[in-house]
């Protein structure tokens, strides 16, 4: 991030203190969505903001909040631009941000392996008899469990810390979270999934 003047650095910091409207424990700085602040003249400012997900509706509330904070700081004209590139990643969440998510009861995203979803089994509801010579995933070398979760770093329960957790649904209360359950303390919890 390029910040030119002291005023720009100050405004960037100020915009960074705005809480995320959906996850108010996180600030925009900790979420990693503020890209740049440019001051034009003495009291006009342009802010570059990047969405977490392309369709994330929180971005509009973020823009309004940034405008309010910067106007209260004496800026007459505040323009918030949405920038898509480079694409936001959960790796942009700061270490403090991750810790706050955990304290809030949300398992933080694991840091980058390969991007993308972790294939998960949907559970052993195979009630249809399989043809005796059918070549299933078992034969394809996947393993006895039809579609196993590749064991990378486990998603830990934010409540008890157990690594023994299972996926309930890939999509939870928002697009950026998955719903999981701890097999240790039996508590369900949200997981900020890797993007």
């Amino acid at each position, binding site marked *: 991030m390029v910040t030119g003047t002291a005023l720009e650095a100050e405004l960037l910091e100020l915009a960074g203190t705005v809480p995320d409207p959906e996850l108010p424990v996180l600030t925009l700085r900790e979420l990693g969505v503020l890209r740049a602040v440019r001051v034009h003249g003495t009291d006009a400012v342009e802010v570059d903001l990047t*969405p977490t*997900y*392309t*369709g*994330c*509706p929180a*971005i509009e509330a973020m823009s309004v909040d940034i405008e309010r904070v910067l106007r209260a700081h004496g800026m007459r004209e505040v323009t918030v*631009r*949405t*920038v*898509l*590139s*480079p*694409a*936001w*990643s959960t790796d942009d969440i700061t270490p403090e941000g991750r810790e706050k998510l955990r304290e809030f009861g949300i398992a933080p995203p694991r840091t980058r392996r390969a*991007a*993308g*979803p972790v*294939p*998960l089994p*949907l559970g052993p*509801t*195979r*009630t*249809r008899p*399989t*043809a005796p010579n*059918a*070549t*299933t*995933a078992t034969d*394809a070398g996947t393993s006895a469990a*039809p*579609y196993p979760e590749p064991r990378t770093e486990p998603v830990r329960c934010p409540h008890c810390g157990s690594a023994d957790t299972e996926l*309930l*649904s*890939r*999509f*939870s*209360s*928002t*697009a950026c979270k998955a*719903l999981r359950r701890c097999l240790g303390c039996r508590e369900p919890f949200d997981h900020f*999934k890797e*993007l």
Partner: protein
Amino acid sequence: MTATGPATVPVTAALALGDDALVLSHRLGEWAGHAPVLEEEVALANIALDLLGQARVLLSLAGDEDELAYLREERAFRNLQLVEQPNGDFAHTIARQLYFSTYQHLLYADLAAGDGPFAPLAAKAVKEVAYHRDHAEQWTLRLGDGTETSHERMARACAALWRYTGEMFQPVEGLAADWARLEERWLESVTDVLTRATLALPEGPRTGAWSAGAGRQGLHTEPFGRMLAEMQHLHRSHPGATW
């Protein structure tokens, strides 16, 4: 929404990609209140929201997003006929998701790797679509390799939508893609998933005279008009309405 884009955007391509996302988003939204379980209710709505976000960016590259979404007639839409097909039962929705998200994922990965006007959006959306594709694959496996009933319904759904899958690989003006190679990779992936789901690859042609042309040329199937009527009704009755 202000999206930053290069000055010259191929409008035809922006409409094709944007309309695919918009129309499928609307169809998935129709599941709200009707999904078989709560988790799927939430999953389908989340996928719809991702697609709506992509549609907003893409249509904004082509013009005013609201005008394009709410004030165009049926013949001006450039989406694939596949995405406008009614939801049917849950298996139909999953088959449509499997066919489309596999296609969208492969196409966006190619666009993201290039330096064309769609690269920034594609680089972002490809990560979201990876989850859509995974969701569709997992459900195809579960339904295909599930009960007698789920197997039969999934097979029926895959066969019913097969005829709309050829259109995906018609070249789109302004999109630099290797369409023949894309089709090969798509077929390979779908064959793999269906085989693992103990389902046969549907037989029969994947495009033909029955489609009277194709969605990319603005020719749509009968259910699309009814869908548009519902989608556009509010805006046309109360222009500029907000809440």
